[in-house]
């Protein structure tokens, strides 16, 4: 771990300039102003003696909105800014940058969340919502009035990216980053590249060979001198922070296991998906060899000899039934939950088109087979997908539609008397809601996607996971391939269901973010970390005992020879556990001092 000097010592109290706060209340395009009386908020907060301007505006985050603030800084001597708007996750940085452009220290800013914390949750109570907005905004004023200017923490960034997973998303991310001059270590647990694409022969909708895609990307990986491809590798540790991660892994080689450690500035997760596995008895699965998942069926179709009918263990297959949404769009109380107690309520996006693609391949190879397709909605959304649906109809595939309440049922039979032996029963809403019994020889379950089990990585890195168990991006539109952990990016189906084209695009998008992050060589981080007033520190070490971030706090010697606590700002997460136990108030979080909290609480409870 690199030593980072304490770049964030407490500044001596500078000559106190007059505090001149500008307050700006955002309508958020109605999100706030439909509930909160923003004009009243601006008027009431404007009465605070430190508040020199107080305004409300339709979209503070827009360019004219930002100009409003910048003008007041330049013309009206505003030196502290409060914006009452959306979550700081969305636009705190936006407004800090505006302060910076106007020549003000960007940390003399307070973002008050009155959308998520007021207007969205108190819709029916406009008066008390307005009162709450006033109090929260005044608390923001009190906080920012006590704010010192802060400097961002700058750390050097390793020009190296670790990509975890060498499926197509991971390979694409690796190649893209490498082409921008970054060193890349591509870590793959299995003995080959290509991931799930290796299970497929051709890809929808254009029938491109999956092997061709894997081979081409693999050749790009292997021929790039900046990429170190490590197959048969198992992660052993991930440590550090943005710009300076340490990733350890154990690689199986013919000479035995090799342990390696890589220093990297960024990490791209491309850990992929697994297929939903139906429970025993779910639609007859594992109760009969005639019930297969779509991946199993695709493998089988590779091996059957061509002919009018499909031949399975000497038995002719005349009727095949496909069932959609197995393991997707599940309904609580109807479907059996996963071990974590949750059903898969999401759509897996690819299975409709994948099933139709399989149907066409089946009918191409075995033109005598009749196909029955049982679905809720056919979601052939992508380019060329709808054609597969249209064509299937024209080729005589019969479609049956059921509702979420009336799921299809499989009835298995032993004897066949030469006829299809099983029954696929569906309450078909397209034909008078009657139960239709479809005689079938083979049933194919279009199973959905679930994320690969990466619980080890999730726990080590404290990664955010959504209710659907996929890794959770910061915001689907603002930061779609980033997680809350700085310097960690998402590529492909670890984030959610995607097809091959979409996964490749996500891989490139993740690589561009890594390239932007590392292109300057230095990374700036927010300075909201612990700082020590050494003159007050008694060296009791209580803070060290509370600190959960290895290396963030150490004991050192002060200039006058006393034992005092010292902070490594790059490793400190700013959690405040240390400040909570420090009796003499010697340690505090920059930008979140106890004095500020005291003043905020006073403002919140004042009459």
């Amino acid at each position, binding site marked *: 771990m690199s030593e980072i000097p304490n770049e964030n010592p407490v500044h001596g109290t500078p000559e106190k300039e007059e505090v001149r706060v500008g307050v700006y209340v955002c309508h*958020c*395009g109605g*999100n706030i102003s439909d509930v909160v009386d923003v004009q009243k908020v601006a008027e009431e907060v404007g009465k605070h003696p430190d508040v020199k301007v107080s305004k409300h505006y*339709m*979209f503070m*985050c*827009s*360019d*004219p*909105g930002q100009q409003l603030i910048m003008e007041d800084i330049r013309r009206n001597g505003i030196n502290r800014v409060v914006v009452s708007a959306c979550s700081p996750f*969305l*636009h705190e940085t*936006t407004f800090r940058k505006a302060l910076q*452009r106007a020549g003000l220290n960007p940390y003399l800013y307070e973002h008050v969340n009155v959308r998520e914390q007021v207007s969205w949750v108190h819709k029916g109570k406009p008066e008390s919502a307005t009162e709450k907005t006033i109090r929260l905004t005044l608390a923001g004023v009190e906080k920012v009035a006590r704010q010192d200017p802060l400097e961002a923490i700058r750390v050097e960034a390793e020009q190296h990216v670790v990509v975890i997973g060498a499926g*197509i998303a991971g390979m*694409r991310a690796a190649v893209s980053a490498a*082409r*921008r*001059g970054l060193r890349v270590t591509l870590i793959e647990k299995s003995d080959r590249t290509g991931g799930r694409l290796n299970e497929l022969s051709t890809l929808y909708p*254009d029938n491109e060979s999956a092997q061709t*895609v894997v081979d081409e*990307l693999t050749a790009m990986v292997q021929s790039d001198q900046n990429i170190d491809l490590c197959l048969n590798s198992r992660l052993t540790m991930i440590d550090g922070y943005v710009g300076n991660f340490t990733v350890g892994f154990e690689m199986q080689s013919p000479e035995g296991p090799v342990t390696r450690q890589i220093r990297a500035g960024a990490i791209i997760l491309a850990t992929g998906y697994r297929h939903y596995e139906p429970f025993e008895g779910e639609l007859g699965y594992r109760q009969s060899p005639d019930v297969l998942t779509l991946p199993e069926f695709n493998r089988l179709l590779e091996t059957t000899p061509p002919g009018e009918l499909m031949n399975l263990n000497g038995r002719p297959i005349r009727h095949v039934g496909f069932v959609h949404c197995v393991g997707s*769009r599940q309904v609580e109380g109807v479907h059996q939950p996963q071990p974590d107690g949750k059903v898969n*309520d*999401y*759509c897996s*996006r690819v299975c409709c088109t994948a099933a139709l693609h399989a149907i066409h391949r089946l009918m191409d190879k075995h033109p005598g087979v009749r196909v029955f397709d049982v679905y809720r*909605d056919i*979601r052939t*959304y*992508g*380019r060329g997908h*709808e*054609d597969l649906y249209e064509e299937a109809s024209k080729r005589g595939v019969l479609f049956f*539609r059921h509702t979420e309440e009336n799921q299809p049922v499989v009835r298995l039979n032993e004897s066949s008397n030469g006829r299809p032996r099983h029954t696929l029963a569906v309450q078909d809403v*397209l034909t*008078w*809601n009657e139960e239709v019994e479809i005689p079938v020889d083979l049933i194919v379950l279009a199973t959905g996607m679930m994320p690969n089990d990466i619980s080890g990585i999730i726990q080590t890195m404290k990664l955010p996971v959504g209710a659907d168990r996929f890794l959770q991006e910061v915001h*689907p*539109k*603002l930061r*779609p*391939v980033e997680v809350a952990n700085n310097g960690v990016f998402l590529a492909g189906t670890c*984030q*959610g269901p995607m097809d*091959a*084209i*979409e996964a*490749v*695009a*996500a891989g*490139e*998008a*993740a*690589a*561009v*973010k890594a*390239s*932007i992050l590392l*292109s300057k060589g230095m990374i700036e981080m927010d300075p909201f970390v612990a700082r020590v007033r050494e003159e007050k520190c008694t060296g009791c070490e209580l803070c060290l005992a509370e600190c959960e971030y290895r290396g963030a706090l150490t004991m050192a010697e002060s200039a006058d020879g006393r034992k005092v606590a010292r902070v490594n700002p790059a490793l400190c997460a700013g959690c405040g556990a240390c400040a909570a136990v420090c009796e003499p108030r010697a340690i505090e979080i920059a930008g979140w001092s106890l004095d500020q909290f005291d003043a905020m609480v006073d403002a919140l409870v004042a009459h």
Partner: protein
Amino acid sequence: MIANHPVERADALVVGAGIAGLQAALDLADQGFQVVIVERQPSIGGHMINLSKVFPTLDCASCITTPRMASTAHHPNIQVFTYSEVDSIRPVGDRFQATITRKPRYIDEDKCIGCKRCEEACTVYLPDEYDHSLGAKKAVSIPFTNAIPQYPVLDMDECFLCGGCARACPTDAIDYLQKPETFQLEVGAVILATGYDMTPMDAKSQYGGGKLPNVISPWQAERLLAPHGPYGGVLRPSDGKIPDSIAFVQCAGSRDASLGVPYCSRVCCMYAIKQAMLLSGSLPIADITIYYMDIRAFGKGYEQFYQSAKAMGIEFVKAKVGRIREDEEHNPILRIERQEGDSAPEEVRHDLVILSLGMVPAWIPDRDGIVPLQTGSDRFLLSPKPRISPTLTTLPGVFACGAATGPKDIVDTIVEAGAAAMQAAAHLQRTLAGAAK
């Protein structure tokens, strides 16, 4: 930066300043490349800036778009040309020569301070295309509140040349004699983010051919729902009545070979569900019905969004809408055939109907003779190797993203814009290194 004067060279040209173009330009500029953006409209922001809120998070669309617009407008590595057209893009060796025409705003941009006094002085009212003709604007006007840049455009075809604006302008910026200005730009890479249009309202005569006042487009519905919309609320256009019964007709411009749009437009299910939710928020007692073929809620969080719409009481009816006519009070009457159950075709009256139109390419570079590129049978740009990168085109060094490569929602567009920026950056790195040797 907003460019008021021609630029001769840059690393990359981005055509289109919708959400795709903005994201691609920012992702390139943040890596240190010099980028020129050319946008045909007077403001950057694309279609997205016209929207009310966006699925599935229901964030206000401006909250997502305007910060990117501002970042672009202030980025030291970006030069933005608005109200400008790309006439041609020609490969020259490793690089490209683009011909760009700046259309006359009849405003001297160097003098204009965006004070809007010209707009106040103007006496000519025109339909406001930003509000999709639900509202009015002046013949000289800044396109909308959040527009970047804040320069007005004078509509010379409608102007009376009364001179009112010129007299009102404090900086003498009105220039009735301004001419188009054409210039050449040399770049190392091009990103096409040229977006989409919607299928026209008058495409289907069965649905009234665009002539029924209370059968509106999804754009108009967005504007009715927008906080700064033309009526300040949801009112129907014919008589200003608050609608009690609202219907959406899905696939009104998609999955329909008769329109030449046999494909799925991918976003209409979700935007209709979103609009239905917003409508039920602003009109709690209104009945809202969505007539559909399949609900395609396939993206992350979309199925859950659909389920919550159903839980809110929005009615989803699987039915084909054969015809729409109106009664003497302009109430739309839909002739529908339910596909569930055993019912004969029936007629249903609603107060307001929204046609969920589909997406078609806004710009067909090959047909327009601007740059020779292959398109698919759907007329969107085609990647020769979509699984190596969906942003490739048939011309090396030219990349495409967003709705230019097929209908796409905002999330997928933003991801693909990042991918295009990655491709362009890698291409520039390779060709610039080659040139250095």
